[in-house]
């Protein structure tokens, strides 16, 4: 059976070579048409993929699966107290939440003031945050090589150390190589311990991280004794426990501040998973849309192949008749046409993919800068794109070959032998 298939393949190959010799230009044009279709589908899907990755990175720039917790005011009377009462967090609430809620992986307080940061004669106004060491991990503050984030020792000793957003470091010093240098805030001297790595943020509260600075919460409290917790940030142990953690936070804080646990206005929680889900879906939607456009272009190429195959069937009517007279079964008449169509499609697919990969590589090497590129990302090829493109190409090739082949197999041998 295998040898029959092999010999049929050999026959197809000689058929194909012969036909390519007869109509090399026409064949080449068809291959180019398929190549163009492949190019558009691969490029569009790759742009979509790059954008999806950029979106994915962007929505997680602020931290992945995190929640931000602000105090609100009650809207329901509870336990003898009227509605409209403002909730005010206390410094130790973070520790309490961590101790009572097992589904929380980390919590950090956040105090904030806007202050002038000075280096020599230069002063830049920026937000200064007082945070716990866990803040770095939760909120994705990754130091550039050579630097670090705030640690427990800084907290205990109330060290005057500061972690800078990358743009703020640039504004203050004109360079990113600033670890160990000094910054003044209200006549206190802070040592820079790290500068944040560049990241894309699609979601944020009170401004992008790149223009802000972070100091230990203990240091912040010793400088501003009247400071109150502005908000907490938290990270659940996993995606699955996030809803539980959220409910527990309401329950624990409702018990402490004596408000109705069903009163959603007493606390406001920004669950960033929502945004991640929405942007992921938008990105997927855009990619599918681009993919459909690409696939349609490829189908047009497929029509070209089918068209040529019909012409080839007509040209070879007599030859098909001869083969039928010699005892070729329908399958044996059809196989060469289907295989030839798949061959043309395959050649076009390889051509289109090769060109796309070159373009993607060239774009990847270009030093493109700016917000737009950060958000759009660069076209990225992926195994899934390869699989999708191959599948569509295979389908197009098969359909483009099948219908002309069926026409070939329906030829009446007695009539075709008289056909000139």
């Amino acid at each position, binding site marked *: 059976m295998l*040898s*029959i298939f*092999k*010999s*049929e393949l050999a*026959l197809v190959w*000689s*058929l194909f*070579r*012969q036909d390519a*010799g007869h109509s090399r230009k026409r064949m080449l044009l068809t291959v180019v048409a398929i190549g163009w279709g492949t190019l558009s589908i691969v490029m569009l899907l790759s742009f979509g993929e790059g954008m999806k990755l950029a979106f994915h990175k962007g929505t997680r720039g602020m931290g992945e699966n995190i929640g931000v917790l602000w105090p609100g005011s009650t809207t329901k009377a509870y336990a003898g107290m009227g509605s409209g009462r403002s909730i005010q967090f206390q410094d130790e609430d973070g520790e309490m939440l961590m101790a009572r809620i097992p589904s929380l992986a980390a919590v950090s307080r956040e105090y904030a003031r806007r202050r002038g940061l000075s280096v020599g004669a230069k002063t830049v106004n920026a937000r200064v945050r007082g945070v716990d060491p866990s803040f770095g991990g939760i909120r994705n503050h990754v130091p550039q090589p050579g630097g670090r984030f705030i640690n427990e020792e800084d907290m205990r000793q109330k060290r005057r150390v500061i972690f800078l957003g990358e743009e703020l470091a640039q504004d203050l010093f004109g360079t990113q190589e600033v670890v160990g240098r000094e910054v003044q805030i209200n006549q206190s001297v802070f040592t820079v311990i790290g500068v944040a790595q560049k990241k894309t943020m699609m979601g944020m509260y009170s401004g992008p991280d790149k223009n802000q600075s972070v100091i230990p919460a203990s240091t912040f409290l010793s400088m501003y004794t009247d400071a109150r917790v502005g908000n907490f940030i938290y990270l659940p142990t996993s995606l699955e426990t996030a809803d539980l953690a959220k409910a527990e936070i309401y329950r624990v804080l409702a018990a402490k501040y004596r408000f109705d646990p069903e009163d959603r206005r007493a606390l406001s929680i920004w669950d960033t998973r929502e945004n991640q889900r929405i942007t992921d879906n938008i990105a997927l939607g855009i990619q599918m849309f681009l993919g459909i456009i690409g696939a349609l272009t490829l189908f047009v190429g497929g029509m070209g192949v089918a068209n040529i195959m019909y012409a080839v069937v007509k040209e070879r009517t*007599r*030859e098909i008749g*001869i*083969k*039928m*007279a*010699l*005892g*070729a*079964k*329908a399958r*044996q008449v059809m196989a060469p046409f289907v295989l030839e169509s798949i061959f043309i499609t395959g050649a076009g697919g390889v051509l289109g993919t090769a060109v796309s990969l070159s373009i993607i590589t060239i774009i990847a090497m270009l030093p493109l800068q700016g917000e737009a590129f950060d958000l759009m990302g660069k076209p990225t090829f992926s195994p899934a794109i390869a699989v999708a493109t191959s599948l569509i190409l295979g389908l197009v090739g098969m359909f483009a070959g099948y219908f002309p082949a069926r026409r070939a197999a329906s030829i*009446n*041998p*007695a009539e075709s*032998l008289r056909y000139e």
Partner: protein
Amino acid sequence: MIEMTAIRKVYSTGRMEVEALKGVNLTIGRNEYVSIVGPSGSGKSTLMNLIGCLDTPSTGTYLLSGENVAGLDRNQLAEVRNKKIGFVFQSFNLLPYASALENVALPLLFAGISDKKRNERAKEMLERVNLGDRMDHKPTELSGGQMQRVAIARALANNPAIILADEPTGNLDSASGHAIADLFGELHAAGQTIVMDHPRQRPREDRLPLRSYPRRRDRRRQPPRRLNVIARSPS
């Protein structure tokens, strides 16, 4: 070998129905050398197509070596053509891009015979028609007589029950034509059953009218055309 009983063939062309064969009875035995003779339009081609299983009769029974082929589907007919019938055409009908060897190997390919056996058998057949030295030549590199030899080798490849030849010398000059006719004579002498059709009778053949059949066309307008079967009895 061939037993046709009450074979009718009706072609319908849109509004009109044309009865090409009106009840043909024909028996051809093993190792007969039969010529079907008749003028154009007499139904020769139709009868040849039916004998060759390229077409099926409208009514009637056709037994080919005992098997009724009247009710077979397209693939079954293909198999019958492949195994039991060898075709030789007036215009050779070789595949132009394939070598003589590949052309002869084609019916063996359709029979599902392996590469090696196929080539051996094809070589053997080409040697039998004295073309052992032309195996790798393309049809365009061969003379008309040589092309027809390749076609005969191809017809013999699957060792068919009958060779069906459609005016095999019609496109050849007289010398090549005689050589091909001699080749058919040799095959017949070696035991092959041969059915041939001709537009007219040839002086070289022994004539033995077997039967004649009433033909289609309006009898009032012109005298009925007749289809004759002439056989050379087994030698």
